[in-house]
Every structure is written in structure tokens, then in C-alpha cells.
């Protein structure tokens, strides 16, 4: 068979299709989004796929289908599971009929998230099995195993890839599809209705199941134990890949040394790969620990494997030292790398009689992942002896924070609010999406951001503390449907003075332009009834609702000023499509004869298309989308709309 390049998320989707999944639901979130999109794109025709309004709804829809015996998959990112945790905890008690896999992508780093939370904890909290793939190809196989275990034990299972598995690609050979999921049929039974008495019985059953699963997972082929010796390395997920590379490099290094010194020094160690962190494969783990003096654990996010091993050492009185995050031998935050694994393993596997404290220099290892220079320090020590080349001094690198795109309508919305509130006491609560980037200089229009939908309610709390401040809440269209509506109800009901700014760009932009209830499209490709945001607000009792084009600065400022004067809840809906789904307008250019060099356009807007050249502003034709905001800001009429 021919190999194809599949992103980890695509591999999970293809693996689920191969396993006969019949219903797939989810809410977009980096790094999980492409899983559901791939199922929709590769749908053989018999799979129902939906972007649900939020993760709780997604999990509940899938649960219903799984009650009726269908194989179902739910996709979300780690913080999405917080939203879905209510149905998750109860569903763990109720169980399922058809296989149900809840894919929750964790984001070590974090690269594009609010938290570095570890879904392996959620698995032990909810008492559910969890699968932790180490590569796209393993994910492709493992998702099928997850369906099989789910069906065998009649329980939903968690499947937790991390960013580098999700967004890493590998050449994979696809296998023929398995038998498709049978047609759904719901069989009525009191077991589907959660009740205190049933919960008690289910709790007992779940506890009784744990040791059975622990034994079953001890012979699961993806949990691997190899090698021999007095030292052991335990790892899982993508850290297994880094560990393999680190050991390979170490072996090559020792080989070179041996060629010079002619003495034998094979590396003896046991390697334990944990693919099911919960329930822990106890028998296999005891086999690993048996005869060991020391263990090094390489894992990302929280010390889950480390704690399990320490627990087993205590429970079975094993004289094994366990090193990892808790002992300060590996970094406590951020993502791992080959360098981090190599450094920790090199120190750990040092030959005897060199047993000084092998704890790492945490100040360098806890460094943020993007900071390559710091990462380099981690391996500088070993390289310093070999490399003695004098390099010219590196020039200072420009800082390159993420910014709103050139032409983004959110820039115009934020700028209008900023202008309208100039000199007034106002607080701007933001939310999750592209528009969180409104926090950047020079706009600086996001004073708070917590989690999906929280901006609207945080603004209400701020209002209670400072009633004379104008409290704004910015929220995007997709986030409004996700968890924003309940906050609006709360504000209207409790008679709170807030100004709601809906940044409606007709899509879920940050995650790659998914449809939502306001777009009039579904993931099955159907044209759906558009849910009108103004009509929803009106039904909720919002007193004043204005809809306006943010790219008309004068009108936008006036709309904000009107809304801010209203007692109670008022709303301004800024409607303009995201540049990625709208046609660019004619481009603008700076007339150097008229440009006074006041830099007003740059200082006020921070548009990436406008740069400074010697003493004039200049517009980059590769970036300008013709939004016209700069022409409305320029005091010298120096920016013209001559199409290029």
C-alpha cells in the first residue's frame, strides 16, 4: 500500500472511520480541530458529523447515539473538557452501549491555550480509561483499540493526544475499513436514568472494574516494557518519542567514546512506555520496578506516571527511588523536547562513581519552550568542550507577538470603542478567540480574559464593584453561541449595566473558520436556518440593540456612545466578515507627498500592513486588505484608495 502524509489529527479521524464510527460531534479548539474536519471531509456517507454549539452539547449528543448502540466520537481541546465535565462525570456512571471515545487534545507549552491542564487527571477523577498515543501512526491504530475497550466495558473512554501528536505529520499506510457500526436502536431500560440509588450501585461497579482494567491494560500491546538493568526510564505520549531519540543519540555518543577509549560501556536500562495512564497497568509496572534502584520519569504536563510509580513503591514496599517533576529532575511546566529528554537521561544514566546530585538546573529547564536560546543552554554544557568557534555577536531579534491580521474588522471595532470612551472611566472585558489579540499594543483593549463566555459575566462582577465605570464585554459570534447567551440572561435578569459588544465576523475564525448557528451552514453541508443574534438579544430583553459596520468609524463611534449612555444591558453588534472569508477591497497606498510622518496611523492602529520607511508610513501591498480604517484615521488625507 502507498504511504500518505497524515497529520496526527487526520490519522485519528481516519482511524475512527476505519473503526466504523457513526456519529462525530465536537467544538473547535486548537489542537483538536482537524479531527472532526477530516471526518467530515472523508465521510464515506454514513457518518453524522456536527459542530455542536459547545463541548457539553457535543458530549451529550454523542452519548445519546451511543446509548442507542452507535460508535460515537467527541472532539475538543483540554479546556473544552471543563465545559463538558458535567455530563462526563455522570456518563461515567451511566455508561454506553456503542463504543464512545472522547478525544481531548492537551496542549503542553501551552502553545495556543489558557492552561496546561492534564486530561490524564480528568480520567482518574472521572474513573475512566484513557489512551495516550505517542505518534500519528500509533494514534491511527490506538483509536480503534479505544472503541473496542469502550464497547467491551460499556464505558466512555478518553483519548488524549497532545499538540505534537495532533499537529505532527507522519507517512502512514492506511488499512482497509473494519465492519461499519450497526444501525442504532435504543432499548428502554431504567439503567439510562441516573438516580441516587443507581449511582451508588454504579460506583461500586466502577471500583470493581478498576483492577480488572489494570490487569487487562498490563497486556495491552501499546504498553511496552523492554531492557534490563538497575535503572529504569518510564515515559508516555510524545515524550516516548523524545526519549527514544535521546537514547539513540546517547548510544551514538558512547560508541564514539568507546572507539577512542577501547573500553566497554553498554547502556543498561529498562524502558517502560505507558499508553494507558489510567487505570494504570499495575502488573506491568511492578515487573518494571522489580530489581530497579532508580527510575527517571519523562512526561509532559503533570507528574501522573511519576505519582503512580511512587504510589506502587509505597504500596509494595519497593526500595526504588523515583525521579521526575516532583523531585526537580525534569521541568515542571512547558513542553518537552529531545534536548530536555537527552539532558535528563544523560545525567540519570551516568556511569557509577559519578553519583553527584543529578538534579537539573531548573532555571534553564523551566524556560519557556519558544526560547530556543535558553533550550540551547541546556545542552551547552556538553558541547562547550567540543565546540570552540568564535561566532560574531547575534543582533537583537525583533519581538514578534501574534497580532490581529491586516484588515481584521476587530481592529476597527476595538478602535471605535477606544475612541468613544476616550477620557471616560471604562473597563474592557474580553473573551476567547482572535479578538483576545485586541490586548496587544497599541489597541490595549482587553483588560480581562478568563475562559469561553466569561467576559460577559466578569463585566457584571466588575460593575458590582465599580458602578460608576462603564463596563464593556467583547464577545465573538461563535463564543456568543457557545456560552455567551447565559451570561446575557444573567445581566438582564439581575439588572446590570453593561455594554455588550458582539464582534460578528460570520465565522469561528481562530480555529480555522468553522460554521456556527449564525452562519446558516452545518457541518453536513446543509443550509440551515440562521439564528439571528439581534433577535436572540431582543428575546432576552436587551434594551438597546444596534447593528453597525465597524469599518465606518464615525457611525461605529456614535453607536458606542449611544449604547454606553443606556442604563441596563445595551448591545452593539459589529458585523463584518473575517478577511479570510471576505473578498479584499481595493488596496490603499500612502502618498509620500502628503504624509507628514506623524505616525498616527501606526501608533493608533498597529496594522501589520503599515510600516515605517525612513520618515514616511508605507503600506505593504502583500498584506493590505483595503479595510480603509487608516484612511479614516489619517489627519492629512495622505492615504488614498487608488487600486494597485
Amino acid at each position: 500500500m502507498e504511504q500518505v502524509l497524515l497529520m496526527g489529527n487526520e490519522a485519528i479521524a481516519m482511524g475512527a472511520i476505519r473503526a466504523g464510527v457513526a456519529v462525530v460531534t465536537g467544538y473547535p479548539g486548537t489542537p483538536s480541530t482537524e479531527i472532526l474536519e477530516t471526518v467530515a471531509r472523508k465521510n464515506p456517507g454514513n457518518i453524522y458529523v456536527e459542530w455542536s454549539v459547545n463541548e457539553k452539547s457535543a458530549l451529550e449528543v454523542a452519548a445519546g447515539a451511543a446509548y442507542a448502540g452507535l460508535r460515537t466520537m467527541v472532539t475538543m481541546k483540554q479546556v473544552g473538557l471543563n465545559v463538558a465535565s458535567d455530563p462526563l462525570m455522570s456518563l461515567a456512571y451511566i455508561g454506553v452501549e456503542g463504543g464512545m471515545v472522547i478525544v481531548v487534545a492537551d496542549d503542553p507549552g501551552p502553545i495556543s491555550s489558557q492552561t496546561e491542564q492534564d486530561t490524564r487527571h480528568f480520567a482518574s477523577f472521572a474513573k475512566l480509561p484513557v489512551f495516550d498515543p505517542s505518534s500519528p501512526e500509533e494514534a491511527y491504530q490506538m483509536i480503534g483499540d479505544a472503541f473496542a475497550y469502550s464497547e467491551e466495558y460499556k464505558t466512555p473512554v478518553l483519548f488524549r493526544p497532545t499538540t505534537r501528536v495532533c499537529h505532527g505529520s507522519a507517512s502512514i499506510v492506511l488499512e482497509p475499513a473494519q465492519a461499519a457500526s450497526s444501525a442504532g436502536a435504543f432499548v428502554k431500560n431504567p439503567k439510562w436514568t441516573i438516580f441516587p440509588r443507581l449511582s451508588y450501585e454504579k460506583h461500586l461497579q466502577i471500583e470493581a472494574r478498576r483492577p480488572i482494567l489494570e490487569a487487562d491494560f498490563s497486556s495491552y500491546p501499546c504498553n511496552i516494557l523492554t531492557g534490563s538493568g538497575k535503572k529504569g526510564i518510564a515515559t508516555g505520549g510524545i515524550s516516548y518519542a523524545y526519549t527514544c531519540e535521546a537514547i539513540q543519540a546517547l548510544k551514538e555518543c558512547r560508541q564514539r567514546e568507546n572507539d577512542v577509549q577501547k573500553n566497554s560501556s553498554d547502556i543498561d536500562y529498562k524502558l517502560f512506555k505507558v499508553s494507558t495512564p489510567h487505570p494504570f497497568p499495575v502488573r506491568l509496572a511492578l515487573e518494571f520496578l522489580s530489581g530497579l534502584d532508580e527510575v527517571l520519569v519523562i512526561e509532559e504536563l503533570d507528574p501522573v506516571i511519576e505519582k503512580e510509580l511512587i504510589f506502587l513503591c509505597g504500596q509494595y514496599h519497593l526500595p526504588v527511588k523515583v525521579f521526575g517533576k516532583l523531585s526537580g529532575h525534569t521541568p515542571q511546566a512547558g513542553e518537552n523536547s529531545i534536548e530536555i529528554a537527552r539532558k535528563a537521561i544523560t545525567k540519570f544514566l551516568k556511569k557509577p562513581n559519578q553519583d553527584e546530585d543529578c538534579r537539573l538546573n531548573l532555571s534553564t529547564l523551566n524556560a519557556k519552550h519558544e526560547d530556543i536560546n535558553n533550550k540551547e543552554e541546556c545542552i551547552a554544557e556538553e558541547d562547550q568542550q567540543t565546540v570552540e568557534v568564535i561566532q560574531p555577536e547575534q543582533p537583537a531579534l525583533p519581538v514578534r507577538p501574534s497580532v490581529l491580521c491586516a484588515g481584521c474588522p476587530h481592529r476597527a471595532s476595538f478602535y471605535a470603542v477606544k475612541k468613544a470612551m476616550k477620557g471616560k472611566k471604562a473597563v474592557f472585558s474580553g473573551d476567547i478567540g482572535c479578538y483576545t489579540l485586541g490586548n496587544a499594543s497599541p489597541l490595549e483593549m482587553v483588560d480581562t480574559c478568563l475562559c469561553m463566555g466569561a467576559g460577559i459575566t466578569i463585566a457584571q462582577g466588575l460593575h458590582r464593584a465599580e458602578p460608576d465605570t462603564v463596563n464593556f464585554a467583547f464577545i465573538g459570534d461563535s463564543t456568543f453561541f457557545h456560552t455567551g447567551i447565559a451570561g446575557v440572561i444573567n445581566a438582564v435578569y439581575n439588572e446590570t449595566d453593561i455594554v455588550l459588544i458582539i464582534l460578528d465576523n460570520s465565522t469561528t475564525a481562530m480555529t480555522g473558520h468553522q460554521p456556527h448557528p449564525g452562519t446558516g451552514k452545518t457541518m453536513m453541508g446543509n443550509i440551515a436556518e440562521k439564528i439571528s443574534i439581534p433577535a436572540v438579544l431582543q428575546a432576552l430583553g436587551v434594551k438597546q440593540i444596534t447593528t453597525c459596520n465597524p469599518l465606518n468609524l464615525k457611525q461605529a463611534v456614535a453607536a458606542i456612545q449611544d449604547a454606553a449612555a443606556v442604563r441596563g444591558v445595551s448591545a452593539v453588534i459589529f458585523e463584518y466578515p473575517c478577511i479570510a472569508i471576505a473578498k479584499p477591497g481595493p488596496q490603499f497606498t500612502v502618498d509620500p507627498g502628503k504624509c507628514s510622518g506623524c505616525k498616527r496611523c501606526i501608533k493608533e492602529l498597529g496594522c501589520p500592513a503599515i510600516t515605517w520607511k525612513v520618515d514616511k508610513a508605507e503600506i505593504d501591498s502583500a498584506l493590505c486588505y483595503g479595510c480603509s480604517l487608516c484612511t479614516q484615521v489619517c489627519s492629512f488625507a495622505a492615504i488614498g484608495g487608488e487600486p494597485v
Partner: protein
Amino acid sequence: MNIILAGVGGQGIVLASKVIAQSAMQKGLKVRTAETIGMAQRGGCVVSHVRIGENIHAPLVALKTADLVLGFEPAEAVRALPFLKPQGTVIVSQKAIKPVTASLSAEGYEGKTMLDYLQNSVSRFYIVDSDAVCSVCGSPKVLNTALLGAAAGSGVLGFTLTDMETALESVLPAKLLDMNIQALRAGAQNIEEGNICV
């Protein structure tokens, strides 16, 4: 072989790494890649890792092991230098992309400083006149393909231009193919014409 593609969100780096991976797979080689997706795509630093060959486990390139750093922007090429192995190759677009922060602050940032630094610290170094190549092709959006052409032209990748044209055919929609093949060839020619600084 390890390759790092470094630039700014929106430059088409993810697609470029796909084309390299596709070229390798056409020769029956195994590939792993890692890309930057998400918030950083909005004008932030974007790095793609491409690894080709046997016995490769991790999607990320280890520091000091990259055979090639393909810089889509001078400062981003400098930022990615810790990945380059001794005697490794750097190919970079000469066009600087100034971040908003640089336009706001007094210091600014000049691409020339970065190019000079690269020239003095890298043994095999090529500058691609991306403005010239893009204007020949009639679009600034083909920079990524032009750089791929330059990489193929330099001989570092071990793929011919024909290999990469076949890869483009399988990765790109048909309507964009002609312009990108033109860019690929123009990029390779740009290297041959002697923007080579050893």
C-alpha cells in the same frame, strides 16, 4: 535529513513543508513533520520541522542537527539558527517583515543586519531575491514555492525540480499550479544566477 522552515504566520510555511514531505514520500522515504498552528499563525513566529529517513521518532528537530534552515524572513532565519548543524545550509528570502512592535518602537529592525550576520556565521548561505521572483510570477503569495525552488536548486534537499513539480501537482489545487511551477523554477534560477555567498 532534518529541515527547518522558519518565518511569519501567513507566509505559507505549512504548505511548503507538505511539498517537501510529499517529494520525499514519492521516493519511498519516511517523513515526520511538525507545524505551528493556532494563535501564532496571526503574524507570529512560525516554524515547521521536517524530518526524512529511517529511525526517526520525534516530530521536532533537535538543536544543531538541521541540514537546512529555509528562512522565509531574515530575522526568523537568525532565530532558527540554533537548529542548524555545523556546515549546514541556510537559504533565506531577503525581504524583511517588520512586526508591529518594531514599527511602534524607535529602534525598528533592518533585514540587512540579519543578512550580514547570517553571511558571517553560516558556511553555506544563499539569499533569494524574493521580490524579483514574486514580481516575475505576478504575486507575492508564491514566496513559499520560490524558496522551495531555491532549496531544490541548491542541491541540499536531494530532490530535483521535477520531483518537486510532481509534489506540487499532488498538493496544490489545479488552478494555482501553473503560477507555482513558475515560481519554483524562478526560485531555482535565482540561486543559479549567483546569489550564493559562501
